[in-house]
């Protein structure tokens, strides 16, 4: 059974910017055993989406569907079973483990909470989980301060796995780590997906990481989706102009030919200035004209699984971007 999240979360008055919702008109789905990467710069609303799915903030509009069940509910009103199936891993491993608890307590708590096991059995569960994330079972007696950043992130993964989830929400979980450590955790995530049939919603701004882990990619700009597709499709032309900018911004060991690289670096919208119909229009190197400011761009289908939201049709983008 496919699991999906057609969703339109919007943060309401409770958030700091009442005039402009953090996320608008975002809709996507994730199948079992699939990794969907959500890509975008900071402030694009990636974490808002994760928090909405986790039930930590309520969308003002739209729906979240999990296993055919409407889950547009705050965490307090979700069933325990649902909370168990969706688990969250956050960016900063230093802040996500209680510095006053030993690892057996950190990892043991979800076991106790969801499965009501304690004592020996719980301890065995903790040991198994530590081994699953390739840490020694003896680590359970340590404090988080005894661990390196990479080890802490493995513990955070083990804590999420303790609930035996179906969907793991990974919010920038590699960005605080060294590249060498990232590789180890990437391999671990791949192994976990193969072994447990887990679905990942993987949030990242690191395109190399996304390319190596994701099956599908959704590109987010200022709270709106601008491109959705399979990882190969998104990573080759035609690109949405914003996706193109993202790739250009990546440092490349051997720079390519002359391309339009003079992208205006982010113009912040000030005060009462109207939000353009296409949020990327003010920065877009391929802006067509005033239509971009006035008319919301349509979704154009490149293939059955690949869609780009731009006034320039996919075929033309491909021609422009062909090297």
């Amino acid at each position, binding site marked *: 059974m496919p699991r999906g999240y057609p969703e339109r979360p919007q943060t309401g008055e409770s958030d700091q910017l009442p005039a402009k919702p953090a996320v608008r008109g975002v809709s996507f789905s994730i199948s079992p055993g699939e990794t969907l990467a959500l890509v975008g710069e900071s402030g694009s609303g990636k974490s808002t989406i994760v928090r909405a799915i*986790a*039930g930590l903030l309520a969308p003002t509009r739209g729906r979240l569907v999990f296993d055919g069940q409407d889950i547009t509910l705050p965490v307090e009103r979700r069933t325990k079973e649902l*909370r168990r199936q969706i688990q*969250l891993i956050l960016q900063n491993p230093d*802040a996500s483990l209680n510095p006053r608890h030993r690892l057996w307590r950190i990892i043991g708590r979800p076991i106790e*909470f969801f499965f009501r096991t304690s004592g020996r059995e719980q301890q065995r569960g903790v040991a198994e989980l530590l081994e699953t994330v390739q840490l020694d079972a003896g680590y359970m007696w340590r404090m988080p301060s005894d661990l390196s950043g990479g080890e802490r992130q493995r513990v955070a993964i083990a804590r999420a796995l303790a*609930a035996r989830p179906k969907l793991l929400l990974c919010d920038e979980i590699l960005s605080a780590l060294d590249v060498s450590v990232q590789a180890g955790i990437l391999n671990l995530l791949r192994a976990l997906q193969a072994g447990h049939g887990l679905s990942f919603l993987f949030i990242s701004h690191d395109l190399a990481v996304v390319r190596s882990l994701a099956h599908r990619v959704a590109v987010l700009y200022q709270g709106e989706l601008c491109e959705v597709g399979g990882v190969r499709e998104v990573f080759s032309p035609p690109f949405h102009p914003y996706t193109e900018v993202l790739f250009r911004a990546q440092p490349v060991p051997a720079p390519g030919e002359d391309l339009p690289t003079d992208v205006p670096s982010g113009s912040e919208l000030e005060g009462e200035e109207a939000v353009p119909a296409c949020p990327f229009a003010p920065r877009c190197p391929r802006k067509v004209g005033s239509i971009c400011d006035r008319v919301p761009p349509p979704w154009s289908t490149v293939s059955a699984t690949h869609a780009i939201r731009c006034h320039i049709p996919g075929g033309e983008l491909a021609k422009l971007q062909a090297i």
Partner: protein
Amino acid sequence: MLAWFPEWPLSALIAGSILVLHGVIALTGPMWAPYSPTKILVGQPFASPSTAHLLGTDNLGRDVFSRVVYGERTVLTLSLSATGLGVLCGASLGLVTGYARGWLDEVVMRIIDIMISIPPLILALLVISALGSSPLLLVLTVAFFYVPRVARVVRAATLRVVMEDFVTIARARGESAWSIAHKELLPNVIGTVLVEFAIRSGYAVIFIGSMGFLGFGPPPPTPEWGLMVNQGREYIVTAPWAVVAPAVGIASLVVPLNLFTDGMARLLGQSVPWERH
């Protein structure tokens, strides 16, 4: 011995030992004190210190040493139970408001602002002169003053922790507010609570001593140090020991308490808020 506590400053260790001594006297004093604290004419009035009366006798011929020893239990019981009650309620309130935030926090904090603006001594005198002096009332009054002050400090400490990701994770798991408060938050603010308890115990000793001195503490002939200082005051020239002994008792409790708090706070990485009252 020092090797057991390598991280504690020497002053805090010495202070700690003196505090242990106070505790031992309070617990066992009545077993070995030479005389009853309230029996009059166990010796000549105003007898100077001697082997029979280590710290002399007072105007009624009561043994000052025995009274000081018995007084220890009174002073410690009153100040520790007042501080304990105040810190317990204040810390719980601070933890709850710091976690809940929102309108509850706003309302409670404004009430706390009002409570803090009441001058302690004046209200204490008012309450006790209206309702009569009793040890229980004294304890409740001191606790009442401590609740808002401790709540404010613990709330600030809680606010620093509550935004941390491990709290978010616990919330996403669906942990109850109670469970988050005592499993996730409390272990991170317990240092603050301990420092508050230690520093406020010292204040409580002084405050309760002052109340005793003004006649608003336990009634005579209870061997309470503040009361003893007041009663001996008239005869300070003929029998200075009757004033000095209980005064030294108070000082030898308050000064080590402050030194010990200082060391403990440094060890726990907390600030020492000496100006706070």
